[in-house]
């Protein structure tokens, strides 16, 4: 690794740390006059502190939009290359892409192409998910026949049974309601809190420069 590259990496890390510190402080302190008490000018100070986050968010939003365009251009480039190597399916991607853009330019605001192609394919794929879920679930349970597997099946059966619109199943529906309100709510909260803690830890690692995934 040359000296120039080392300086480059150091610069990237410095930029990441500086921007991260400014952004986090601006998000935490900005637009919150209550933090500064009833002092005169606290609203202006809070607005001023929110400014860096506002500017950086605008900047990054446009950069992300541009990177999406670059990503799509890369997708097309890859498929042109594959088509040149004789992969016929890439012609379908390029044709459907070209036709959709042509349709949009020629008939702006017309959503019939979306209704005729996109919605049916998405719905059919989502419908296939039902069979995949059943298949995957049965395979997992076939391999793990323990107390946790039994509990899992019991909950699934209870929720599915309670969804049937039958008056005879009213007691099961009451059980399902309680299950959703208490144990499922508690488990979901634990999962969400775990995800939030994971997000905070990963985010702080990125902000401190410990996790330099941008080095590529």
């Amino acid at each position: 690794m040359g000296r120039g590259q080392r300086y480059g990496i150091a610069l990237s890390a410095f930029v990441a740390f500086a921007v991260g510190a400014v952004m986090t402080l601006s998000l935490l302190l900005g637009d919150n006059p209550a933090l500064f008490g009833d002092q005169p000018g606290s609203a202006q100070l809070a607005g001023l502190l929110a400014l860096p986050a506002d500017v950086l968010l605008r900047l990054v939003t446009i950069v992300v939009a541009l990177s999406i365009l670059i990503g799509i251009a890369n997708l097309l480039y890859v498929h042109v290359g594959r088509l040149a190597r004789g992969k016929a399916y890439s012609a379908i991607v390029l044709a459907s892409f070209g036709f959709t853009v042509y349709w949009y330019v020629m008939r702006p605001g017309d959503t019939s192409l979306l209704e005729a192609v996109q919605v049916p394919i998405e719905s059919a794929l989502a419908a296939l998910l039902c069979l995949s879920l059943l298949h995957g679930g049965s395979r997992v349970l076939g391999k793990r026949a323990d107390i946790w597997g039994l509990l899992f099946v019991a909950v699934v059966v209870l929720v599915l049974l309670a969804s049937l619109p039958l008056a005879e199943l009213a007691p099961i529906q009451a059980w399902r309601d309680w299950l959703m309100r208490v144990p499922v709510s508690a488990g979901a909260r634990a999962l969400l809190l775990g995800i939030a803690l994971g997000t905070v830890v990963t985010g702080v690692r990125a902000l401190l420069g410990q996790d330099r995934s941008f080095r590529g």
Partner: protein
Amino acid sequence: MAESTITIVSFVLTLMVFSYLLGDLPLIGNLYRAAVYIFVGMTAAFTLIVSYEGLILPYLQDIQDQSTSWTALGWRADITIFGAALLFGLLLLLKPVKSLTWLTNSVFAVVIVVGASVGVVGALNGTLFPLLYATVALPEDLTGNFNALLDTLLIFVGTMTGLYYFQYQVRARSDGSEEQSRLGRGFRHIGKAFLVTALGAIYASTLLTSLTILTERIGFLFQFGA
């Protein structure tokens, strides 16, 4: 596009996707792949259109209008922000040039770090604090309502033991096995029961949703055939 054309195209594409169930037979197996490739091409096109129409075009229109401003810094600052974003976009294109990778990485650094900041502050203010408060706070009226008190207690125990279940730091014995106190193991079992219950309910709900969509698609196919 005429209504009948939309129905015919929908019917054909639905059958093409459902041909997946027949396995990898010659010709039929290709129909599913063709439908997926159509989907990929159209999704890329719609993403391009939405990105252009929803983000880039409004920004382009805004910077031409001197009476509007994105920030408190005024209209000229908007042009600077847009120019900087365009420059950053151009720098992203330099990724294949080895000697200039650090420039592209600096742009990635800004994007990742801004995303991380928003993620950290969002997770703290949007999930962590409100959920913790909702878990430890007692309902306002608990007088004589034993069931509500029990439910609140169960939610608290379920959330805390569920969180405890995610703790992977255990003391290692000399033979490599893990050492954990009986109390800790008990907490983990209770937490696991709550988590399995939640995952079972989520699985059943997802199954119900996809079953509803499957029923609708099969209904559509039969309706078309009739």
